[in-house]
């Protein structure tokens, strides 16, 4: 009987296990192995021990792209969480078809492919004809080629990213808000608590688990940024938007340095794991207070 169960189970799990071993386990082991060699992208290389890791530590562009990745995380993670919560509070007040339409307005960008998103914004922000340039000119006095300006480029990519992906946070927050029982608000209103007090003492603490979830998902997501930056600025101007995944891409596919690209990949992986564990701990302890 047990053997029969095992056989049946193997039939059900076999295809996945094969795929898992070939597409996930093998490439992961291969990545670690590659990081200790000087191999080109395709073909064998010699074992060079920790040389790639030492080089990584002293690599200026690596630090630059790490710094830029953190800058991007700073510009996106907390703002998008706050905006998501604010919009959710606004949308949650509405009801019926009206709510559906308003929600769709905020959510629609999220399901678009990244290349469509960047084509839209390249047009909206076009230096000569862009419809957003009058707004920029209002503050700066003249149109700005935002993706070619080292101070504007990264905040603009972050802005577009928030516009693009905020629908996801909005959905999670709306679900969270709906889970808060109306009874709390009724009881608080009976005790004479105003809207603001209700928000601070009921909504905020009870929405905290969702907030923590959104922050964690966003942190991991934004550390992996590549598509938007690559399509909008190629990392420029003057490396002002060069990020870690793009550095992997450059080492592997432009400079043909498979070994070193693997080392950079592992560094990014380690960073993501460490930061998400760290954030999880911090957010959890805050939630318990």
């Amino acid at each position, binding site marked *: 009987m047990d053997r029969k*169960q095992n056989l*049946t*189970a193997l*039939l*059900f*799990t076999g295809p*996945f*296990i094969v*795929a*898992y071993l070939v*597409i*996930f386990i*093998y*490439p*992961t082991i*291969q*990545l670690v192995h*590659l990081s200790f060699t000087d191999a080109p992208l*395709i073909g064998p290389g010699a074992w060079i021990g920790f040389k790639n890791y030492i080089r990584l530590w002293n690599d200026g562009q690596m630090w630059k792209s790490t710094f830029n990745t953190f800058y991007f995380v700073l510009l996106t993670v907390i703002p998008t969480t706050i905006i998501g919560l604010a*919009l959710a509070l606004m949308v949650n*007040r*509405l009801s019926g078809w009206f709510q*559906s339409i*308003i929600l*769709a*307005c*905020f959510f*629609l960008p999220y*399901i*678009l*492919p*990244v*290349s*469509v998103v*960047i*084509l*839209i*914004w*390249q*047009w*909206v922000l*076009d230096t000569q*004809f862009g*419809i957003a340039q009058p707004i920029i000119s209002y503050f700066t006095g003249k149109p700005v080629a935002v993706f070619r300006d080292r101070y504007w480029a990264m905040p603009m990519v972050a802005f577009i990213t928030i516009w693009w992906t905020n629908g996801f946070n909005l959905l*999670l927050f709306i*679900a969270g808000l709906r889970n808060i029982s109306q009874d709390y608000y009724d009881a608080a209103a009976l005790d004479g608590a105003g809207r603001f007090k209700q928000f601070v003492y009921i909504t905020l603490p009870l929405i905290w688990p969702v907030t923590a*979830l959104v922050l964690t998902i966003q942190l*991991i997501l934004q550390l992996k940024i*590549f*598509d938007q930056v690559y399509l909008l600025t190629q990392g420029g101007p003057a490396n002002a938007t060069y990020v870690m*995944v793009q550095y*992997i891409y450059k080492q*592997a*596919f432009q400079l043909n340095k498979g070994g070193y*690209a*693997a080392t950079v*990949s592992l560094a*990014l*992986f380690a960073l993501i*794991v460490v930061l998400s564990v760290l954030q999880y701990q911090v957010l959890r302890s805050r939630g318990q207070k």
Partner: protein
Amino acid sequence: MIRRLNIAGGLISVFTVLCAVVWAFPLYWAAVTTLKPEDEVVQSGFGLIPRIWTIAGYAFVLLNTNIARWYMNSIITSVSVTVLVLILSASCGYAISQLRFTGRTVLWLAILASFMVPTQTLIVTHFVLMNDFGLINTLAGVVLPQLIVPVTIIVYKQFFDSIPKDYREVALIDGAKEYQIFWHVFIRMNWGITTALAIITFIGAWNNFMWPFIAVTQQAKMNVTVGITQVDDAFGLAYARNLSGAVLAALPVALAYLIFQRRVTQAIMLSAGIKG
């Protein structure tokens, strides 16, 4: 007091609508641009409605680029990814949920662990692997690395767990085969979840940029999301054309969302770990 609240509430509602209009405006602006002639596009001003209506941008993209080909590639790869991911995940989730077998816990932990590894860090070795298989610049090479989606297995397992054990045991006593129980009982009872996961997997595969961009360098094998960035390179400043390509590339996922809005929402919540 109540009157004051209503005025405040009304103002917030107006503000909400304003925000929604501003948020969605770039979408409208891009869409309306595709219906203008190229010289009207670059005229200054706020042409909310085209003075001259035209579909020249679409005609140009359809006739002068490989977009029909890219579209086919996108459909083939996205549908393949969707079907394969669902089959692999559902059957694996079923085994973990319903069968007791050697290595079950190890398999489950391995799936949870793979959740942690971002696919972006595997692009180098995925490329090497696909090259070893001779699959660079092929549609199969685009599909294969997208097949491991741990979250789909996790969702399936949760839903299969919530079906009472009696269902399977009664069916076994009646002489049903395991695959029959899997298909006729467990999948049928979770058909809603299956559609939701299928739609979200399809949207994800269609929108995937990085891997198709790396795995394919020949124009003829590109996905539409990668291909339209090539149109941009080729024509420079021709926004009606570029955006026509963009609208076409976005059409399937936008329609999928508008038609299956509730399912898409449900699938997103489930993937984030919130049971909706």
